[in-house]
């Protein structure tokens, strides 16, 4: 499917609908890491490994929501020359195969203007946008811009989110609702938060779109636990970025890890 006529929002809905009885597998790929060409190959490896949706990271100078592994990868990507045009070319290539959502910090969205940024994303084939430092209360301009371009502005909720905020965020969520599983930045954890089921239940009650869990999920067991706790999708970032960083063959390494994660999510396991 090329998604030429389907809106980004529709394409994400289709990806969740097609996931064949398991939680959607949603790998994070840092655009431009270790190079633009290699990040495209990593994304393609993710598709082969069973990705339902890819979250493509735009490298940024000051990533406040990211832990050291993703921060370092972004710094490396910028030093290697990654820019918006280059990362959107990666996005364009991957969007031929799979629904792609861009993760991008607010200052880069506002730099050309939210409207222009959203239009550019749409032209590149993106389905949606995640802005980790654009909480409920600051989202209006970007939300309007995304709606005009048929893009899903995917909001985040955290374990600290109050019931009032959860209701408001869930109601305006498009594409999916990104549930942050831990109080903290991105990065692998030894164990999932003991209250994950509770957070997920709150998130699911607040919205009609699928609920995906991210931050702190790195092993097949954790992916499975998140799915068993009710997640419609499981986002894995740092584990994959680390695999890419540690290997001579980044795409191959990511494909292996992703296959293990997919097996962990397989029905009947």
């Amino acid at each position: 499917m090329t998604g030429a006529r389907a809106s980004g929002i529709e394409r994400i809905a289709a990806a969740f609908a097609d996931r064949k009885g398991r939680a959607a597998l949603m790998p994070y790929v840092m655009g431009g890491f270790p190079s633009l060409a290699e990040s495209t190959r990593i994304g393609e490896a993710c598709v082969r490994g069973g990705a339902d949706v890819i979250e493509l990271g735009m490298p940024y100078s000051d990533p406040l929501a990211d832990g050291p592994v993703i921060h370092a990868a972004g710094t490396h990507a910028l030093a290697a020359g990654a820019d918006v045009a280059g990362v959107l070319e990666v996005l364009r290539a991957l969007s031929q195969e799979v629904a792609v959502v861009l993760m991008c910090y607010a200052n880069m969205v506002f730099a050309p203007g939210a409207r222009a940024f959203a239009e550019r994303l749409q032209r590149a084939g993106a389905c949606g946008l995640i802005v980790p430092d654009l909480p409920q209360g600051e989202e209006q301009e970007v939300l309007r811009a995304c709606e005009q371009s048929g893009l899903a502005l995917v909001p985040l909720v955290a374990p600290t989110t109050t019931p009032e905020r959860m209701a408001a965020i869930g109601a305006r969520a498009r594409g999916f609702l990104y549930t942050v599983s831990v109080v903290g930045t991105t990065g692998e954890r030894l164990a999932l938060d003991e209250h994950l089921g509770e957070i997920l239940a709150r998130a699911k009650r607040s919205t009609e779109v699928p609920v995906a869990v991210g931050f702190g999920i790195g092993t097949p067991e954790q992916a499975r636990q998140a799915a068993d706790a009710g997640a419609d999708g499981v986002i894995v970032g740092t584990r994959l970025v680390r695999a890419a960083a540690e290997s001579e063959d980044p795409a191959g390494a990511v494909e292996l890890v992703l296959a293990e994660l997919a097996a962990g999510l397989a029905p009947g396991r």
Partner: protein
Amino acid sequence: MEHRFGPYGGQFVPETLMPALAELEDAWTRARADDSYRSELARLLRDFAGRPTPLYLADRLSERAGRPVYLKREDLNHTGSHKLNNALGQALLARRMGKQRIIAETGAGQHGVATATVCALLGMECVVYMGVQDTRRQRPNVQRMELLGASVKPVDAGAMTLKEATSEAIRDWVANVASTHYVIGSVVGPAPYPAIVRDLQRVIGDEARAQMLERERRLPARVVACVGGGSNAMGIFSAFLADEDVELIGVEAAGEGIDTQRHGAPLTVGGRPGILHGSRSAVMQNEEGQIIEAHSVSAGLDYPGAGPQHAHLRDTGRARYVAVTDDDALHAFRVLSRLEGIIPALETAHALAWLLAQSDGELDLVCLSGRGDKDLAEVLGGAGA
């Protein structure tokens, strides 16, 4: 309280922090109306910090300038800068909120020392993030913080200066928000921080205005202060905002020159606003919105952003922002030392350099925001870099 200053300010932070910002705003609103909080803060400002600080008519500096110049002596505040005013107020607030762990960022080390001092005073745990580059050029302040019981965490990302230290402090807060209060050191960050820090630093301006009226029976024609994030400037400006005849001058770091990219003068240079550390304001950035590293010989002004209210004061014309190069600031550092027997902080030396370059004026008030003992190695060329 204010979340926005015209188009500036706001709360551009991860969702995880939003409830903590609401809790902070609520606690601050109640504390500032509470006599027990206010009297405790007033007692500590008086007996511990040594306030009010003097307003000093600098005779020989005035002679050089050709007009009377008064210095508001924040260098005589305990710990050697204005930073203690804010640290005391926020740490008392944290204690009311039941938070025992304090984190802070620091550039020049003055805010880190002030926060470490207050944590020692109140028996609280203290972690200070500081860029590796700054731990080198402000070594004495690292030693002071450690002596006071704080844990200094060197930050080796990016240019290893104040911007990265602030980002790392915010990440710590995201991870430890339930137990921890983040004592931000300037009028930056997400709302309600810019308003809280301004209100806690306003004591500088309130004292100086009353002292000036008592001494001169008139208000100053100009109030001059250096601006990195801009807390000493906001503190002294805020008492004069309604005095429309008083000109307000904020002095940024021109570094190697504002026509180079090696400076710390986002307000002076202008351009498209940006988002840094949770608020929209004047920011040094490239076309795509990547933040550009600042440069200044002074660690406290080596920051690519500035407080959102400063950006608004600039746009409305109420305050004017100018910039002074490294070389001119270093010169002013020596001039004040020789003329007045006061070794100013390198940050403050920027304000003094601007003042010395003006031939006009009738009555100037300069915020002498801190003392320069910490800068000797940098100025005398002994800093390892």
